[in-house]
């Protein structure tokens, strides 16, 4: 028995009135209809939407995975390029050092050769100047000696000596 409060009076309703078979069937049919309606109007769209969302998420994850793969590949390529660039830079530096050393050696060799040539030329010039100076001094000595001899002979040659010289010259020329 079900107790109902109506206008301050507690009324008693029998269970047989409440659980009427037609009403139960009606409720069951209504429940089925409601369930089918909910399934068709709510559950399927929601399920379809969830499926679409899942597809979208999978697609995004796949894109992310592709992007990650691409990023990894780019990173690998960049590292490879960087490694090559470092190797090339090292090779360029080594070559530059080698070329600089070669140029330095060439400059030093050239400077030594020029210095040697300069020293040789200077020595030749000094030798030439020394020879000229020596000849000049010898010439001056000869000039002075000749002047002294002329003065001495001019004073010391007597008329007899002069006559004898002339006679010797005439005798020599007569033999020719």
């Amino acid at each position, binding site marked *: 028995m079900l107790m109902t409060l109506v206008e301050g009076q507690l009324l008693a309703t029998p269970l047989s009135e409440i659980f009427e078979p037609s009403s139960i069937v009606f409720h069951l049919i209504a429940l089925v209809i409601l369930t089918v309606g909910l399934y068709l109007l709510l559950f399927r769209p929601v399920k379809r939407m969830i499926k679409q969302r899942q597809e979208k998420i999978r697609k995004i994850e796949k894109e992310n995975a592709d992007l990650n793969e691409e990023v990894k590949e780019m990173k690998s390529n960049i590292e490879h390029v960087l490694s090559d660039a470092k190797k090339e830079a090292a090779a360029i530096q080594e070559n530059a050092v080698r070329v600089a050393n070669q140029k330095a050696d060439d400059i030093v060799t050239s400077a030594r050769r020029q210095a040697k040539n300069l020293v040789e030329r200077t020595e030749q010039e000094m030798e030439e100047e020394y020879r000229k100076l020596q000849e000049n001094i*010898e010439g001056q000595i000869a000039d002075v000696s000749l002047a002294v001899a002329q003065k001495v002979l*001019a004073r010391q040659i007597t008329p007899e000596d*002069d006559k004898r010289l002339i006679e010797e010259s005439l005798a020599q*020329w007569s033999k020719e």
Partner: protein
Amino acid sequence: MEKHGVTARVILARKPDLELVDKISAFVGSRGCSDVRYTIDPKIIGGIIIYIGDRIFDGSVRSRLENIKQSL
């Protein structure tokens, strides 16, 4: 080649005596000269220089000293 009639020019340091003049005349005569012109030049110091045509006989002390200078 000396030719007759050419005048010889003789340079001496001092005036010659007659004996020397004769010897000089004999020499230039042997070279075809008929006349001698004397010049006194003390710069030759001593000895004699004779010009006959284009030939020069140089026996002066100055030329001997010049030769010595050249050889030095």
